[in-house]
């Protein structure tokens, strides 16, 4: 399992595809679209959170693999600390990841990986976030909130729509620099933002690798302790119109405001395990 990449805990609000990119050639920033994205960014995602995640990886032939992860997340000022442990499959059980995700865009995140088979905590250096997250169809940039200043936002020509009985805004995003494209792996995107709660319930993103797109949709969205949480979602990666791979993410035991201490987010804890 290739894990030498940035791991940032899975924001339950699943920030993923939050700031995907948009078509070039369209007009630059639209203040109204940006205002909506600011509300998306400002949405309460909760703090001191624990959760269990199940990740089902399905290839184009239907072969399935299952990953189970227990995660912990805590805000530390503007920064976010997160810790996760693999529970399944057996050959990676007790593998742990610790991430300090700094709000300062000029500061590299700190990441450590503990591999029980090697009895070693290894520091991970990877500011590139375009690699697959744990073999899923998400990449590491999907797991982090982005700086809205890195993108231009405009409305798609079809400004709004109704999806599953909810009005959504359809917003296009486009990175303002090549560096952001290289870091995230996406060249453009479309976001479907629910108008009542500002959750991105669907998105399409175009990969830097020509011809590949990713389609994310939330299948189950619930309010837990007043915070909107995606409990079931899927991401389909396509080449043209053909599915290449699919990931289903399910969350369980999502709890906020838990009694998480600073000592949990340390390499000491990483090595001790759950």
């Amino acid at each position, binding site marked *: 399992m290739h894990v030498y990449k940035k791991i940032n805990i899975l924001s339950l609000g699943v920030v993923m595809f939050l700031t995907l990119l948009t078509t070039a050639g369209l007009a630059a920033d639209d203040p109204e679209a940006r205002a909506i994205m600011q509300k998306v960014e400002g949405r309460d995602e909760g703090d001191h959170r624990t959760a269990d995640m199940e990740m*089902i990886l399905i290839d184009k032939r239907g072969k399935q693999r299952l990953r189970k992860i227990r995660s912990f997340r805590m805000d530390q000022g503007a920064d976010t600390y997160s810790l996760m442990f693999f529970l399944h499959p057996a050959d990676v059980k007790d593998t742990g990841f610790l991430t300090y995700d700094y709000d300062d865009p000029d500061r590299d995140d*700190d990441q450590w990986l503990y591999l029980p088979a090697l009895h070693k905590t290894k520091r991970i250096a990877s500011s590139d976030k375009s690699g697959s997250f744990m073999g899923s169809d998400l990449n590491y940039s999907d797991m982090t909130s982005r700086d809205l200043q890195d993108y231009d936002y405009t409305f798609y020509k079809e400004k709004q729509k109704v999806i599953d009985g909810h009005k959504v805004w359809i917003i296009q995003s486009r990175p303002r620099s090549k560096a952001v494209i290289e870091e995230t792996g996406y060249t453009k995107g479309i976001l479907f933002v629910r108008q009542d709660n500002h959750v991105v319930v669907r998105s399409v993103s175009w990969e830097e690798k020509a011809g590949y797109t990713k389609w994310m949709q939330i299948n189950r969205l619930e309010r837990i302790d007043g915070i909107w949480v995606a409990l079931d979602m899927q991401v389909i990666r396509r080449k043209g119109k053909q599915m290449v791979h699919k990931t289903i993410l399910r969350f369980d035991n999502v709890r906020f405001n838990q009694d998480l201490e600073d000592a949990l987010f340390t390499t000491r804890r990483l090595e001790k395990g759950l």
Partner: protein
Amino acid sequence: MIANMKAKSPFWVFLCLLVLTVTWYGRLDASDDIEMEPLMQGFDESGESLPAGEDNQSDDILSGFEDESQSEVIAETDLVESDYAVDGYAKFASAYNYAHNTPQAGETDWRGVSKLKSELYLELNAKLQTDWRFRFSGKGSYDGIYRINGYDEYTDDVRDNYETDLFLTETWLAGSPASSLDLKVGRQIVVWGKSDNLRITDVLNPLDLREPGLTDIEDLRLPVFMTRLDYYFGSWNLGGFWIHEIRYNQNPAFGSDFYPGDTPPPDQEDPDEGLGETEYALALSGTFSGWDMAFYYADIVNDAFRIENVSDSQIPELCLKHDRLDFYGTALNVAWGNWLLKAEAAYWEGFRYVNTEDEIFSRVDLLAGLEYAGFQDMTISLEVANRHVVDYDSRLEEFPDEIVADDTQSALRLTRSFMNEALEITVLAILYGSGRDDGALQRLSLDYDIDDAWRVRIGVVAYQAGDRPPFEHVEDNDRVFLDLKYSF
């Protein structure tokens, strides 16, 4: 003719590849200008349009969210929370030697299948109470190739060392007697240092060197019984280690194709079975934003042997001895963007050699390494180490010591995952000597997850002979290997 030469020239091949690459890159850039609409065409509508006036355009980007595959999603697997858990794996490992020459009479024929090994590993983990844990684990293996090929084909040493194995691996009790204190007692593995391929400061556990280049990295270190106490303060951790069990490196057995010679080794001095030889070690480790650092001290028995003449007469009588050494080390990691810098340094005191009798030598070991993770799903690392004997004496070059003043080692590792990490390819090259004059090995392996429990590994390892042991006679040992592992 010129055209023909050009076609065959590596430069022109490179140029063609460059042009193709640039062209392809141009296509990538051009994709940024693709209009969305054509991409959206052909998708079925699955959303409900807003009333007229709110929704005045009809193209749709909704149905791409639908999954046209017919696969049934597997049921959720409930993991039962328990204070006890038994994990492990069963593994079948095989190897085929393809480079050996026809043996002479009386020699082992190493050609063809050289390993048909079944292995079972069991691990019991128990949570005793808050923050106290217990682990009991063991491993057993049987290699059927010796029975199949006939025991007469092999030396007794080979059969004793490779046919069957049964031993305790990690077996310990661990807990926190105080909030800033961790205690761990039992057979365990402690890894020091920041490097991943070469060992400069990772000195506490002996190694299994019976099959260089073939041993899985998780099996490389041999656990030893020790008491470990860690105190945490701020960003620092001070660890104390009392290593009660003295184990030595496991070397190739006499008669194996990795054994560097035609005669059996001298007898090895057995370690003290009591606590009289207990080793001591200290580690001070700091973890900071962007970098980590550690300082080490150890008073330990050398896991590697030296040869000593223990005879008082004219006829030499050799034995393998393990000296008590003092070790001082430091290790540093610095992360910068996609780069990880690794550096280690060590100073050893207490080496003795046959040719210099009672003279005691020191050694300075240095390592520098770089790791790059900026390519998608790929990591490349390069490490270079040098071990320098202080006040080197030219007599050390002679048999049986065969020690050089500067012993250089380099390792290059490339790991790339494919197919959403179902497949991982690793290339590892280790060179001994400043070129590869002291030997080298290259290993290519492919790990494929058949499903969550089954994994298959295939690979090839190739050796180049060198001037010094253990690479003097290994050039024929190239082999392909196939492992099948079931984890539970």
